[in-house]
Every structure is written in structure tokens, then in C-alpha cells.
């Protein structure tokens, strides 16, 4: 299986606190990786380093064999959600996505509409994003991440604020994306999300990461891990 994201000896400190300690890992194509861990364990920081938003003190990140920060500033074929998605509050969801899509110029209005429909929102909705609920904003964030059909998805807590029905819808969507050979990195505090979606579960603990479940080897077995969830 092809390695899509490779992290080599990644270390990062904020002042005296070391938030990543020589993290090394390879994320392979077509799998869903769950990154779990307590608050402050370094999940989001790791994702931000992979996205190129944070510059590590040491170590390297390769995405599709391109070193982030050297060959490319940010992963080139990736859709992301990092923390709470932010949009232009005085515009509709559709307009927000149209503006973002215009940057790459790869897709048109119809594809954006389809992405919005996929996440269960109405592309014709006139309501401004500032008046959206957290769940609706989260859905719009997911639509933004998937609309250009990227090969890699980096989703930090993508189900925050979603109701039960919404979570099930998003699970189905992510499994559908997996069937299209997308590589997905997902962090979540919900054990159910991890159980249902992830092939491999990695736990972040005090800046270190280790794989605790590998369902690709234990096909059919229920994943077992302890202490990863709060």
C-alpha cells in the first residue's frame, strides 16, 4: 500500500512545553486513521504540522512525497477541517464555498451544490452562515473539505456539534469516501466515531504517538483499545 503521508521525528515545543516528541508514522492510501487522545495530548498540533500551518522544531512531513515547508507550503491535494470551521458570517454557505472554490478554479457551482447536498444542507438556503448552528457550520466545513474531491482528508473533530442523525449521515459519507480510496485522518473524542470508521487507531499521549488498533490486520474483529478516550 502506498504511503501518502509520512511523518519523521516530528518535535515541537511551545515555550517549555514539548507538545510533539519525535513523532514518526506513515499513513497509507485508502485507509481511515483515527487519532485519539486526551485534551492537550497533541492531536491538533500534529494535524496542523501535517497541514503545514505549524512549523516543527525538528523533523519532516512528506505528503505525496513532497516535503511540507520545502517542496510545498501546504498539502496540495487535501481537504481539511482544523478546529471550529470559520466562514464569512455575512454570506450564505453557498457563497462562502464559491469564494473558496474560485481559488483553485477546479470546480463549478454544480459540484459545490452537490457537496452541500451530500452533507445534508440546502445549497439554496438564504440564511447567512453567522446564523448557522454549530452543527450546520460543521457540515459546511465538511462540504468545504470534500467539494474538490481531494485524495487526502484531514479532519480535526469533524463531528462536533452534530446531532445523532447528522453523525450517522457523516459516517456514511466518510465510509463512501474511503471506498473511493481516499486517505482520511480523523480525530475524535467519540469512541463510536472511531469504532465505526477507523481502520487504524493511533493514540497521542503527552506528545508521543503509538498505534493501538490495526483493523487491517484484525479484519472482522472489534477494535480494542483502552485509555485512549476521555
Amino acid at each position: 500500500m502506498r504511503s501518502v503521508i509520512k511523518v519523521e521525528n516530528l518535535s515541537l515545543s511551545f515555550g517549555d512545553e514539548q507538545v510533539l516528541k519525535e513523532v514518526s508514522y506513515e499513513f497509507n492510501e485508502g485507509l481511515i486513521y483515527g487519532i485519539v487522545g486526551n485534551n492537550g495530548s497533541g492531536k491538533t498540533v500534529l494535524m496542523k504540522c501535517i497541514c503545514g500551518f505549524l512549523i516543527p522544531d525538528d523533523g519532516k512531513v512528506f505528503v505525496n512525497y513532497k516535503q511540507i515547508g520545502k517542496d510545498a507550503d501546504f498539502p496540495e491535494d487535501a481537504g481539511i477541517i482544523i478546529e471550529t470551521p470559520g466562514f464569512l458570517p455575512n454570506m450564505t454557505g453557498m457563497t462562502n464555498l464559491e469564494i473558496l472554490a474560485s481559488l483553485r478554479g477546479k470546480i463549478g457551482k454544480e459540484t459545490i451544490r452537490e457537496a452541500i447536498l451530500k452533507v445534508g444542507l440546502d445549497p439554496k438556503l438564504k440564511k447567512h452562515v453567522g446564523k448557522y448552528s454549530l452543527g450546520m457550520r460543521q457540515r459546511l466545513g465538511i462540504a468545504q473539505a470534500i467539494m474538490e474531491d481531494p485524495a487526502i482528508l484531514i479532519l480535526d473533530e469533524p463531528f462536533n456539534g452534530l446531532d445523532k442523525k447528522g453523525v450517522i449521515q457523516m459516517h456514511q459519507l466518510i465510509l463512501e469516501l474511503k471506498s473511493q480510496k481516499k486517505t482520511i485522518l480523523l480525530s475524535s473524542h467519540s469512541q463510536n466515531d472511531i469504532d465505526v470508521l477507523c481502520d487504524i487507531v493511533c493514540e497521542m499521549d503527552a506528545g508521543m504517538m503509538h498505534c493501538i488498533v490495526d483493523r487491517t490486520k484484525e479484519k472482522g474483529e472489534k477494535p480494542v483499545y483502552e485509555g485512549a478516550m476521555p
Partner: protein
Amino acid sequence: MFKKLRMVMEAAFYNFRFWKGNARIMAVFILSFILCFLLTDKIVVFAKAHETTMQLMEAFIWTFGDSNSILLSSLLLLLLYADMPFITGATPFFLVRASRKTWVLGQLVYIILSTGIYLLFTLISTCLLCAPYSFTKNIWSQTAAILAYSEEGKALVLPASVKTLEMSRPYQSMMSIFMLMMLYVLTMVFIMMVFNIWKGTVAGVLSVLVFSSYGVLLNPEHLQKLLKLPEEFYYKAKVFIGWISPLNHATYYMHNFGYDKLPTLRQTVFIFIGSIVFLTLLTMRVTKKFSFVFRGTES
């Protein structure tokens, strides 16, 4: 190339989309209008008292031909750029579709455009405030003549000088002052941007305060007192300060119009543009190592 340019412009205009209904932005423009009202008041009162008319641009020329007014107006921009380096919760979505260079150039274009809008607003405000007593023809008014050729300009602390009157006309003067203000403010804000990205928000604000204080404290009177220079050296001190103080470079009458050793307008423009180009390159360099910290945008 065209695609990158379009992305830079999109990055710039993305920031303008946050202006709608933004209380901070509205406050900047309201305060700017109030500042214009306060600063132009003495010249309007003077014209009314002498029952003389004014050329439409004169309120702007006499107000912002003065270094203190330029300084006050430029400091208001600190509020406009309080959210520098303009990172919101939407920024990661933008970044992943662009590059660091595109993003930072977009921010710099935003600064240029928004500063232009701010100064244009300042100009329009001063014109509106003196419009009832003004004419539009490109000749100096009687008010200007009284201010320049009598001691009344000095008494009112207005920079109305014979030099300005005799070497140029109102619209040309206005354009020169507008350009000098624009270049001074851009230099100041670009310095703020460099320090903001390099060392953080506090360093950005401090850099502006140091830059402004340097301009304020550096005047010939201070230098003469500090170095205990005899009176005959005052002119030399004035010329020296005229060259090394950015605020003096931004002050219209502190230029050489053909008979002294102060910098010419052309030299000042070159110095400011050179500084801005250097600061742009420096900003791009420090952005390479910049770690993005995002915050939410929704209320």
C-alpha cells in the same frame, strides 16, 4: 502567473468581506471623520471670521501638510489593523488552496487598498467639512494668501507657507500630500506587519509606537537643545532631521522646492518605495517560518 495574481487579489478581497457590519471598521471611519472635523475646525473658523472663501482642497492641505496631523491620522490605523496579520477561522481553508507567498502578498495588497480607502475617506471628509465656504478652481484662495503672507498661519500653527503657495497649486499640493501620507502610512503598517509575523502582535504594535515616536522626537528643536547647538546650526539640524525622520519625509513643506538642501519630493518617494519593497521582501521571508494560529470568526 495570472492565476497567482487572481489568488493574491482574492486573498486581499477576502479581508474586505469582513468589513460588512464590523463595528471596529465603522469606529475607525467615524473617528477619522471626527479627527478631520477637529483638525480642520481652526481653518474653517479662520475663513469664516475673515469672511474669505477657500479652495476645496485647502482644508486637507493645511491640515495634513503638518506632521502632527499625519501622525494622529496614521495612529488611527492601528485600530483598522488591530486584527493583523488577518488570520481568522476561515484562513486554513484559504491556505490549503494557496501558498504562504500568495497569502502574505494578498494581505499586503489588502493593506495598500484599505489604506488608500482610509486616506480617500479622510480627503473627502475634509472637503465636505469646508465645502460650504469653498470653490473648486485650481487657484489658491484669499484665506490661503492671508495665512501664508501674514504671521497668522504661524499663530494658528498651520503649515501654510509661502513656499507651498508659490511652488505649486492646490490640486497638485493635495496629490503630493496624499501620496506622502500614503507612503508614510504604508511604511509604518508594513513595519507593523513584519514584526507581527516575526515576533507576534505585541511586537507589531510596539514597532509602530517606536516608529512614530522616532518621528515625533526627532525634530530640529530637540536636536538643537540636546546637542546644545548654536542658533546658526538650526538650519543644518533641520536639514539633517528632514533627511533622517520618516515623519518629516511625509511632511510636504519639509521638502526642497529648488533652493535648500532638504530632500526633494522625488527623493522622498524613492526612499519610501525602497523601504516598502524591502519590507515586502522581509515580510515574505519571515512568513516562511510563520506558525498560523487560527481563531473563530462567527459571533
